[in-house]
């Protein structure tokens, strides 16, 4: 079964790339990143960077398995483990989450009202690395059908 990305791309007769993928590929190119640890969408990103199992100075973490909901608290635990054990000093973790798949076990009413801001604040205070960039899809008004909601993306530096 084709992924949403494969299906969407297969309809174009010319080479095309989805903006959010292109942004990451360009980031890797401009930073001379040739290998990375990859969690999620491994097959796709392996075309652009060599996947490695050992510690690396770049980690790609895609949380977008539409068959599985996730809990941000558990995700943070896993990300902190990744940062602590598999990311080299000064290494960068790229995180892209499908925020619609979140199903927490508990809720925090003190977080900002805006969901994007809430995610950013939550991650900033729980991820054991510095937030460098947050790419928040704030301008999706729903006036055009999306195959998938654009991912909410972050770069953290150890």
């Amino acid at each position, binding site marked *: 079964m084709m992924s949403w990305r494969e*299906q*969407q791309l297969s*309809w*174009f*007769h*010319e*080479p*095309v*790339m*989805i*903006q*959010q993928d*292109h942004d990451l590929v360009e980031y890797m190119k401009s930073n001379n990143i040739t290998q990375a640890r990859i969690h999620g969408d491994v097959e796709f990103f392996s075309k652009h960077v060599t996947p490695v199992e050992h510690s690396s100075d770049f980690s790609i973490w895609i949380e977008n398995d539409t068959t599985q*909901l996730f809990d*941000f608290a558990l995700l943070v635990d896993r990300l902190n483990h990744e940062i602590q054990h598999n990311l080299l000093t000064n290494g960068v973790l790229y995180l892209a989450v499908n*925020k*619609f*798949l*979140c*199903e*927490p076990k508990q*809720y*925090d*009413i003190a*977080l900002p*009202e*805006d*969901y994007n801001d*809430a*995610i950013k604040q*939550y991650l900033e205070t729980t991820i054991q690395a510095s937030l460098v960039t947050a790419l928040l899809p704030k301008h*999706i*008004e*729903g*006036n*055009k*059908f*999306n*195959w*998938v*909601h*654009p991912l909410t993306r972050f770069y953290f530096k150890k």
Partner: protein
Amino acid sequence: MKIIQTNNVPQLDDTVLKALSTACVYPMSDVVMSRVIDCLIPGATAILFSGGWRFNLDAIYFEEKKFKALPSIKTHDKMYFVTTDNIDLVTTVLKKTSVKNILFLHSAEFCNYRCVSTLIDCMNDYLIPGAQAILTVPTIRTDFNRLKYSCKDIAQKYSAEYVDHAFIFKRNQTQQGEPA
């Protein structure tokens, strides 16, 4: 290389239209459908932009104009193909046919990751006097702050029902807005 967004599609040929006709509706459980049926008031029913080809209800159906060109689509006797922004045309037909129930059922085309207040506003645009609008949407496709609120919180805030992983919003002309 051309860069596209997640809402870009190429020219609409049969292959793309067929995929779109599947992707533009969300699977709907019998539990949710049964609850909708229970909520219907006596009178005619219209089902809007919900993939009418998957329902057998005696209703007036409105579907996106682009699907008219799809040869494999199952059509109903009373099926109109319009664009989602042609609200005046739809409401005129709804009034002329004295529709009492205006349904949006798990429509990806209509709901499309919108936040709840936008969804309710869009649904209200189609309301006509003496009728009720009912909109169902999977919770997973609705934009709300999931770190802060549960589905039950959202249902309570917007006077919705939370049934089988879906929200059911009901409005008539005397209760269009967001509850205080």
